[in-house]
């Protein structure tokens, strides 16, 4: 069977976008440039979600991450002056240690992912295409359904977490309460 070339093409395109975006995020001097690179990476990731038959997560990713959290980031970057900061040293003194630690972790990843049992790769792929037509409804069932909804409690806790976060953010950021 010929592998679907289009899928591979889009995967590598998006993966490259994400990696380049990620590299730009951690190397740019100017925080706004970093934020824009991160937005690009996040949008590419949303597209990857679509390729993984997870349209709802993709939609949430676009609305919340790209449209919400990153706007918050940009807002804060504009509120604080960065001109002075840009002239300073960008990396801290332990950067070498950091790189070594990351490299160690990377090595760990490589060992795990290349590990095969009896010559077969770690993940045995089953059927790889599922209709996305009912994706949202099925997620809703998991979250809210009276019988199948096993994440309802977690969902409520998450809403509580958001409330706490809102109050915390207001308390932190407000000058005079």
């Amino acid at each position, binding site marked *: 069977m010929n*592998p679907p070339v289009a899928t591979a093409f889009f995967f590598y395109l998006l*993966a490259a976008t994400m*990696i380049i975006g*990620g*590299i730009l*995020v*951690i190397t740019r001097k100017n*925080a706004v440039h*970093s*934020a824009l690179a*991160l937005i690009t990476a996040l949008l590419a*990731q949303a597209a*990857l979600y679509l*390729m*993984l038959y*997870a349209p*709802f*997560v993709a939609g*949430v*990713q676009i609305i*919340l*991450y790209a449209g*919400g959290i990153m706007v*918050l*980031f940009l807002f*804060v970057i504009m509120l*604080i002056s*960065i001109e002075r*900061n840009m002239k*300073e040293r*960008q*990396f*801290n003194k*332990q950067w070498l240690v*950091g*790189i070594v*630690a*990351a490299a160690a*972790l*990377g090595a760990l*990843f490589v060992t795990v*992912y290349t590990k095969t049992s009896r010559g077969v790769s770690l*993940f045995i*792929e*089953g059927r*790889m295409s*599922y209709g996305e037509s009912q*994706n949202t409804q*099925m*997620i809703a069932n*998991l979250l809210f359904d009276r019988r199948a909804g096993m994440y309802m409690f977690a969902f409520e806790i*998450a809403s509580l977490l*958001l409330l706490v*976060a*809102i109050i*915390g*953010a207001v*308390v*932190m*950021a407000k000058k005079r309460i």
Partner: protein
Amino acid sequence: MNTLLHISTLHYLVLGAALFLLGIIGVLTRRNVVIVLMSIELILNAVNLNLVAFSRYWQSIHGASALHGQVFAIFVITDAAAEAAVGLGILIAFFRNKETVNVDEVNLLKW
């Protein structure tokens, strides 16, 4: 060649690992708090990518309605929103007091 063209879960996991490492490097080496926070977002996203990829893998075993990974991803996104709000709030408070965004100078236990 076939393994490269046939996109499997492992491909996504490798991508996730790469992003995770980038995020880790960012957190460990950058001084600018804003960029550190963004690196944390990168880490969370790497995790999310893995979760959704696992979800598809899980679906291939347990049927189309086994979307636990995606539900987890949604929870992680919620968490990221809360983290960003509080983190940036702390950043603003910090900036107001010390007029810097360097993470090295976050050396007071209280002010």
